[in-house]
Structures are given as structure tokens and as C-alpha cells.
């Protein structure tokens, strides 16, 4: 999935969820606030009604308004209250705060409750009439604290913010994870596409090469037969020359056979074999071909390692790797180290030779890629092919001036 499509596919719905959450929590908050305000209003109305009945009764009994005030002190949510006469003149009042009774002439005309902001929060105000049995009218003015409501609203806001932050944090973590996965997926896809292209290219090369080999081998066989017939007819002093020619033709045929074989898919005939035996066989074969006493040979393993694989193919693989190492090292060391890590065998084939130039590192396993005058670029390719046929991997690193190291990972091995 492309970057833009990814953003649209994952990010847009997440933003949508956040927006929905925000809208929902805001609506919910408004609903709760309205509901609570309405409840407070009802509560205040009920409180005022009780007050009014009691006040009317006490006034009828002859109590003075200022005496009545003392009886109603201590109501926690009532900040202030006052008793007014029919002309809305204040007869008596009481307040929790010194001198604070915010009833102006303008407010005296109100018939509906109103909310007043103060440094200690919002105060719900209500001015309502009541009357004694004799018909005399009074007014009761109450200031009711909305602190609880504000605390509740603030708490709801805080909870919403926390929830929102949590959602954002979870979203960020989720998207980072998905983004990483997608990045890995893209890399893997690119790798798979590249492998597929390479396979396709190789298939074409193989087909072409097999065809060429086949076309060459037919005339070679004819030539070989002709030389055999010629050998019988030529004078004795030239028989050796004809025999040499025939031998050279057979050599060409063998090379072509080997070349064709190397392009065919490998089918390892697996068994268990000690790594040391495999490496030693490859090393001995190599030294028989081209001894190099000035290069020191080392083999080490923490504990004897046994490989699960085709012994002949693995010998061929190590032969190619060791040949490459020896050819790159005029004087120094070639070494093989082996160890088992988790469920894999790691084998490092190192040399202290010329090393590989950085721009060639990525191509050393490509078929027909070589930097040598004599080589055909098949050895390392074949080594990789053998390792991959065993379900393993091979890599190379070559720090400047420190030779080259090929690292093989093979599954299924074990210690003794």
C-alpha cells in the first residue's frame, strides 16, 4: 500500500473517531450541564418553597425578619438570602461573605432565576414572592452555590481530556506499529519483486545457456568422433597431436556439462554430516589443486557441529568459498569458525586478503559476475544456490583493509 493510501486508509478513520469522540463528549457534557442546572433550579425552587412556607408562618407568629435569619444559617449551598417587603425593600439579609448581597435595583425586577458569576464560582439567584395568611406580600431572595455543578463539569472536562489524550496516545502507538509493519511489508514486497525479476532473468539466461550448450555439444561430439577416426588414419608421429586435440575437446565438453549442471535447480539429498569433515574435504581438495603454503589455515568450532544437508553439495559450496578466499589472499590467514545460535548453525569463512570493493559487494553472488581474469563468476553464485537450497542464507562483509568474511546461516544443525 502506498504512503498516501495508507494515510487515507488508517489515519483518516482514526481522526474521524477522535472527532466523533470530541463531538460526543462535548454534547454529553452540555447535556449533563443543562440537566444538572435544571435539577439545581428545581432544588432551589423546592428549597425556596419550604423557606417561604416557614417564613410566612414565623412572620405570622410575630417574629421579626432579622430574628428569623438566625434560624436559617448554616445551609451549606446557600451563599446569601434576604427577606424583602412588598416594595422589594430589604428587611433583613444574611450572607456568607461580608457585605455581599448582589441584589441591585435592576435585579429586583426579575421574575426568572438568573446566574451570577463570582470569584467563588457561579451563583444561582432567585427572587420569588410569598404571602402571609393576612395577604401581606413578601419576597425571598436566595443565592444558591453552583460550585458542585462546576466541580462536576470540571471533572467531566478533565475526564474527557484524559480519555482524549489516552485515545491519541493509543492511536500514536498503534499507527507507529502499523507504520513500521507497513514499512517492513513494503521492503519485503520490494525484495520479493526483485527476487522474482532476478529469477525471471536467470530463467531466461538458463534457457539460453542450456540451448547454447546443447548446440555446442552436438558439433563437439561430431568433432570428437572425427578426431578418433583421424587418429587411426594419421601417421604415427602425428597421432599424439590428434590425441591432444581430442583431449582438449573432451575438456570443453566437460566444462559445458558442468556449466549446464550449475544452472539446473538443486535438490539436496539431506543427511547428517560433521561440519569439520565437510570443510576439511573441501580444503584438502582445494590444496590438492593449488597448494598455498604461505597462507595460514585455521578451523575452529566451540563444540563439534553437525549439519543437516547434502554432504557433496556442501563440500562443493565450501570448496568455492575457500577457493575464493585463497585466491584473494597472497599471504595471511584463511579461517572457518562455526557455532550454533538458537536453532541455526553460523559458519564464518574469513580471509585477510584483498577484500571486496564496496560497490561490488552486492553483486558477488550474481551469476557470471567476477573480478578475476580467469574466473567465470559461477563459484560464489553456486555457493549461494547450495545454501539457499538448504533453506539457509549467505552474506558477505568486507571492511576496508580487513579482507572478507562470508557468513552462512543454516537451519537444522546441532551440536554433538
Amino acid at each position: 500500500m502506498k504512503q498516501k493510501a495508507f494515510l487515507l486508509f488508517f489515519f483518516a478513520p482514526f481522526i474521524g473517531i477522535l472527532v466523533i469522540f470530541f463531538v460526543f463528549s462535548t454534547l454529553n457534557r452540555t447535556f449533563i450541564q443543562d440537566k444538572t442546572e435544571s435539577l439545581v433550579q428545581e432544588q432551589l425552587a423546592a428549597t425556596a418553597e419550604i423557606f417561604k412556607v416557614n417564613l410566612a408562618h414565623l412572620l405570622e407568629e410575630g417574629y421579626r425578619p432579622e430574628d428569623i435569619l438566625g434560624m436559617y444559617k448554616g445551609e451549606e449551598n446557600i451563599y446569601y438570602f434576604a427577606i424583602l417587603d412588598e416594595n422589594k425593600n430589604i428587611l433583613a439579609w444574611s450572607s456568607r461573605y461580608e457585605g455581599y448581597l448582589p441584589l441591585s435595583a435592576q435585579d429586583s425586577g426579575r421574575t426568572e432565576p438568573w446566574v451570577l458569576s463570582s470569584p467563588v464560582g457561579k451563583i444561582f439567584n432567585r427572587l420569588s414572592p410569598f404571602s402571609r395568611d393576612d395577604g401581606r406580600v413578601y419576597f425571598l431572595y436566595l443565592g444558591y452555590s453552583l460550585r458542585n455543578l462546576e466541580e462536576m463539569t470540571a471533572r467531566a472536562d478533565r475526564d474527557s481530556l484524559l480519555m482524549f489524550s489516552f485515545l491519541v496516545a493509543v492511536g500514536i502507538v498503534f499507527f507507529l506499529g502499523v507504520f513500521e509493519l507497513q514499512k517492513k511489508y513494503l521492503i519485503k514486497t520490494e525484495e520479493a519483486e526483485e527476487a522474482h525479476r532476478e529469477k525471471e532473468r536467470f530463467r531466461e539466461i538458463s534457457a539460453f545457456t542450456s540451448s547454447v550448450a546443447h548446440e555446442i555439444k552436438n558439433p563437439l561430439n561430431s568433432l570428437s568422433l572425427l578426431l578418433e577416426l583421424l587418429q587411426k588414419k594419421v601417421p604415427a608421429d602425428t597421432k599424439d597431436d590428434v590425441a591432444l586435440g581430442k583431449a582438449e575437446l573432451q575438456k570443453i565438453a566437460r566444462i559445458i556439462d558442468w556449466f549446464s549442471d550449475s544452472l539446473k535447480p538443486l535438490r539436496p539429498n539431506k543427511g547428517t554430516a560433521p561440519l569439520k569433515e565437510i570443510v576439511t574435504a573441501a580444503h584438502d581438495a582445494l590444496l590438492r589443486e593449488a597448494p598455498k603454503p604461505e597462507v595460514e589455515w585455521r578451523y575452529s568450532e566451540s563444540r563439534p557441529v553437525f549439519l543437516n544437508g547434502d554432504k557433496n553439495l556442501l563440500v562443493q559450496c565450501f570448496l568455492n568459498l575457500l577457493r575464493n578466499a585463497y585466491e584473494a589472499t597472497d599471504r595471511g590467514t584463511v579461517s572457518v569458525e562455526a557455532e550454533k545460535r538458537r536453532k541455526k548453525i553460523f559458519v564464518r569463512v574469513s580471509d585477510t586478503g584483498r577484500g571486496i570493493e564496496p560497490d561490488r559487494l552486492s553483486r558477488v553472488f550474481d551469476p557470471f559476475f567476477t573480478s578475476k581474469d580467469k574466473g567465470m563468476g559461477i563459484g560464489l553464485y553456486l555457493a549461494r544456490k547450495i545454501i539457499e537450497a538448504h533453506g539457509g542464507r549467505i552474506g558477505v562483509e568486507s571492511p576496508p583493509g580487513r579482507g572478507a568474511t562470508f557468513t552462512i546461516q543454516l537451519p537444522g544443525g546441532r551440536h554433538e
Partner: protein
Amino acid sequence: MRPARVLVILACLIAAGPVMANQASGRQSAPFYNVDTEKQVEGIIRELVFEPRYQDKAPFLILVIEEKKTGEIYRAEISPVWFFDYDLHKGENVRVVGSTYSKDQGQYIIARRLQCGGETFFLRDSRGFPSWRGGQMKRGERHKGRGM
């Protein structure tokens, strides 16, 4: 706080005891801050006194001010003594904005804003809520009534 001031406050508290006891009947006799009677009074401090003003509350600083224009005497209710930590002296010029009322042929003013010696003290908000009782005025440098 200076020792002299502590002594004065203690003396006021002792003096205020009997008066407070008389007002402990639950009666709210003091006038409230009425925005409809707001007025500005500019004059000279003639006297500084500490008086209990509200039931069960600390005594207040009262300034006896002679208004410059009319020569009328106002008793200006400033704030509880503990809240106001600025040195005022007799003879100083002051400007008080507050709610006025008359009682026993005397003129009174509940101060909302006091200007004195180049400083302004906000003692109540526009609806008369006292600054010493919290809210926004509690924060910052203004919680002691210090002006700006």
C-alpha cells in the same frame, strides 16, 4: 508584621470581644454592598479605627474621611485588619469608591477600591464580593489587597 501593629490588632480584638458577643444572636445588622448606591469620595483621613462589622468576623479597618468638597465625614469600611497591610496615616489623601449608606445621621461607605499614596487597592469586585474571601484575588500579589 511589625510588633506595634500586632499590639494594635490585639487591642482591637480585645475591644471588639463584647461587641461581637452582642451580635452573636444570628442577626445580620450591617448594610450590604449595594451597587445602586456606589459613589466616589475623595478626602483626608481624619482617623483610623478598627471595628467589628460582621457577625463572627474579624474587625475591620475603618477610615474616618473628611470629604474635600463638602467637608462631610464618611466612615469608610475598608477590609479585615489582617488583609490590609499598607501603612495609612492621619492627614493622608485618599480616594474611595464604594457603596454608601446613612445610619444614625452618619455617612458610611463600604469601600470597593481605595487609592492612596499612588497605589490602588481592589477590595471588592464590581458586585461587592470581598477580595479577602478568595476567588481570583487570592492569586498573585493582590491577595493582600496590594494595589497596582
